């Protein structure tokens, strides 16, 4: 069966390697990078806007163009995270934790190279997995009902607990604010509005992107202003050899990469998506790494882990879309709509009936990511040099870009206001040493976690035993409990041994 896959793939390369398709790849990646750089626009919106343009193309060319926009957005999301602490995409939030401190200490080029290279590694791993074991993986995804999904979310939260330098109480407060914000809007299970107080603008709840642009982007600008309009990144030297130099240091982190690849593939398939994957990979890397204590101060491993996982997840998310017709990410949802319009029925029969399309797409994933890596790496010195522009000039530009980004999410002026409010909130939280990451994680996953939890309980008639009802869900819940209680367990061990070493 695997041999068949290779024959199909060989044929797929023949289709994807068509000069017109290669041209589409380059165009798609470039558009995607731009979309990824602009906060708010997002891969899903970008693909949705361009979808109608593809109706006159062959389905294979169309999906090559659209998926390459997606790859480009995945690459591009890292750029503003590193340079300005503004995540262009939700999955780049975790990249800011170490990427931005690196940029501030003059290592922007290094951080960008690490981010792009890790992205490529993650994506490549996921594509190889799709090539080899697509049908098996599709079967695995079917195992995931509400209880299993909740277990995954639980694990994501748990692996995050205790990772911040701040006291646990502050982490929990921050996370709870996030949960409260996530609860605003329509409650999916009862169909009732919650916490909207009759305000029409709140019907949609708080969009994650608005919160992130405000908390990180605007908050960061406010902090920098307070520090006297000094942008320390300006020390960055433009060194064309920076890519090569960084590459030499990366193989050291193979274990982190591999772990993040696996986390990413798993989260992409289940389907939880790239955002929780990046958070989980970061949290676990911080826990496991020798340099764990230095995470958050500009550790290159803290860039490698989330970027690898995000790309592996983003790529792996294509598989359930094709094989089951269930999208693993918002962008995949839009692509799914496209497939139907092109007259392709995603689902179990797609691999059999439309083998040419499927393998053309998989081959284009290989080529598209290679094209993408080359394109973005050549831009590293260019982007790193942006930091040499004085802050007093760049800050208003960033503000405008943030405002446009916030507006684009829902075409709503109210969101721009909300972004400002979140900016002030972000500034205040930072000043009082409340960590922002748990808040953001709770806004992203709070809703889905709650939904999965309540769906599970509906199904079980209210019994919590559903979370221990089969080996799969029990294992994930068990891992979650261990991860969540690890600080306590570690403390107990330390006491027993009479020393104070951190868990390795």
């Amino acid at each position, binding site marked *: 069966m695997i041999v068949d896959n290779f024959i199909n793939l060989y044929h797929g390369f023949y289709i994807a390697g068509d000069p017109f398709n290669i041209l589409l790849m380059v165009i798609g990646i470039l558009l995607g990078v731009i979309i990824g750089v602009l906060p708010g626009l997002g891969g*899903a919106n970008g693909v*949705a806007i361009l*979808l*109608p343009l593809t*109706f*006159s193309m062959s389905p294979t060319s169309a999906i090559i163009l659209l998926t390459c926009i997606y790859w480009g957005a995945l690459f591009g999301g890292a750029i503003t995270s590193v340079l300005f602490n503004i995540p262009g995409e939700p999955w780049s939030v975790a990249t800011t934790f170490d990427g931005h401190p690196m940029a501030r200490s003059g290592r922007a080029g290094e951080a960008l190279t690490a981010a792009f290279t890790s992205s490529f590694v993650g994506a490549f791993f996921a594509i190889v997995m799709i090539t080899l074991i697509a049908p098996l993986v599709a079967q695995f*995804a*079917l*195992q*995931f*009902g*509400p209880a299993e999904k909740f277990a995954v979310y639980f694990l994501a939260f748990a692996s995050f607990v205790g990772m911040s330098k701040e006291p646990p109480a502050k982490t929990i407060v921050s996370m709870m604010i996030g949960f409260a914000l996530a609860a605003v*809007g*329509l*409650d*999916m*299970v*009862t*169909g*009732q*509005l919650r916490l*909207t107080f009759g305000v*029409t603008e709140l*019907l*949609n*709840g708080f969009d994650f992107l608005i919160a992130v642009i405000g908390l990180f982007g605007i908050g960061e600008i406010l902090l920098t202003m307070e520090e006297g309009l000094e942008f320390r990144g300006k020390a960055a030297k433009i060194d064309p050899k920076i890519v090569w130099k960084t590459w030499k240091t990366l193989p050291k982190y193979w274990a982190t990469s591999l772990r993040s690849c696996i986390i990413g593939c798993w989260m992409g398939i289940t389907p939880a998506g790239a955002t929780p994957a990046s958070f989980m990979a970061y949290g676990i890397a911080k826990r496991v790494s020798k340099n764990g204590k230095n995470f958050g101060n500009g550790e290159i491993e803290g860039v490698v882990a989330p970027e690898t996982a995000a790309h592996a997840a983003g790529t792996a998310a294509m598989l*359930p879309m094709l094989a*089951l*017709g*269930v*999208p693993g990410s*918002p962008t995949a*949802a*839009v692509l*799914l*709509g*496209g497939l*139907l*319009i092109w*007259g392709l*029925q*995603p*689902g*179990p*029969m*797609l691999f059999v009936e439309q083998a040419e399309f499927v393998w053309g797409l998989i081959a284009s994933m290989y080529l598209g990511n290679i094209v993408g890596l080359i394109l973005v790496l050549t831009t590293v010195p260019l982007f790193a040099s942006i930091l040499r522009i004085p802050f007093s000039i760049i800050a208003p530009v960033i503000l405008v870009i943030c405002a446009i980004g916030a507006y684009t999410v*829902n*075409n709503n002026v109210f969101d721009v206001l909300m972004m400002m409010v979140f900016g002030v909130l972000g500034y205040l939280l930072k000043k009082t040493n409340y960590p922002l990451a748990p808040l953001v994680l709770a806004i992203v996953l709070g809703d889905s976690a709650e*939904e999965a939890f309540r*769906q599970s309980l*509906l*199904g079980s*008639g209210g019994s919590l035993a559903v979370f221990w009802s089969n080996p799969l869900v029990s294992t994930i819940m068990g891992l979650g409990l261990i991860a969540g209680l690890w600080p306590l367990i570690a403390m107990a061990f330390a006491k027993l041994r009479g020393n104070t070493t951190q868990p390795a």
Partner: protein
Amino acid sequence: MKHLHALGLGAVTALGMTALSMLPAAAAWEPTKPVEFIVPAGTGGGADQMARTLQGIIAKHDLMSTQLVVINKSGGAGGEGFLDVKSNKGNPHKIVISLSNLFTTPLATGIPFNWKDLTPVAMLALDEFVLWVNAEAPYKTAKEYEDAIKAAPDNTFKMGGTGSKQEDQIITVAIQKALGKKLTYIPYKGGGEVAVQLVGGHINSSVNNPIEAVSQWRGDKVRPLCVFDSKTLPYTDKIQGDLSWSSVPTCKSEGLDVEYLMLRGVFMPPGVTDEQVAYFVDLFKRVRETPEWKQLMKDGAFNQTFMAGDEFKAWLDQAETTHKGLMQEAGFIAGN
């Protein structure tokens, strides 16, 4: 802006005059700037797919002089989108596609709008609902499944559906009433997810629209038991083995007297002129003639009823009463 708009209108009147002499059925109005097509649901769902297909067809066949731009406003079970259209009084450059949430959202959430606040343009089609079980389930007919439900205690069987207090749950409540047994209803975000949960065996049945589950059926992962319409579907293309949509019996003939069809219609803001409405009615009539639209109808096994004008309004009035009754019975009305 206002000034420009007035100028534009003048130009259009002139244009319209010429158009009138060329096209017998054409209206004396044409859009002068891109038309916003509001989707009161998220990306990737049934309404979104239909809106984006329409956008593609209109662009490909050059049916409109300006662009059609699809915008998703899904907040508050679609309330956000409908409120946006309601508040844009007299704006002819905005249209909205409807799902059943046109009726269910104001009733379930109390968000203040009603179809009468909007200007009805046309019914594009009606979406069918089918009762599905996992292909490995022992129930070969709807009758066998009904008997199994009746024989078991309340809440033994799990029904998955899209959203809460919307069409899927309304049908579920109607089934409960018909069978005299309670089902556990589990809401999910989208129809595709429901279909996959059914394949994975996490729920016992679903009432997915044909297009949401057809690929799983072709892969022989799920089995359609009956369709919630008064007559069987007309589509005879083979889908799974020798079976086609036309071989799925009606639920009524299987002893389950429940009928439900979902509106896929287009509305405009209040206060638009008759010419403006006529322009869009004519536009969608032409869309219906394209091969792409016919293919979509076939793929999704849609009920191809088309209505406009008073006939459509009368249908809406009737449908609203039906929904009110169903939701009242189920206890889904806000404030209850």
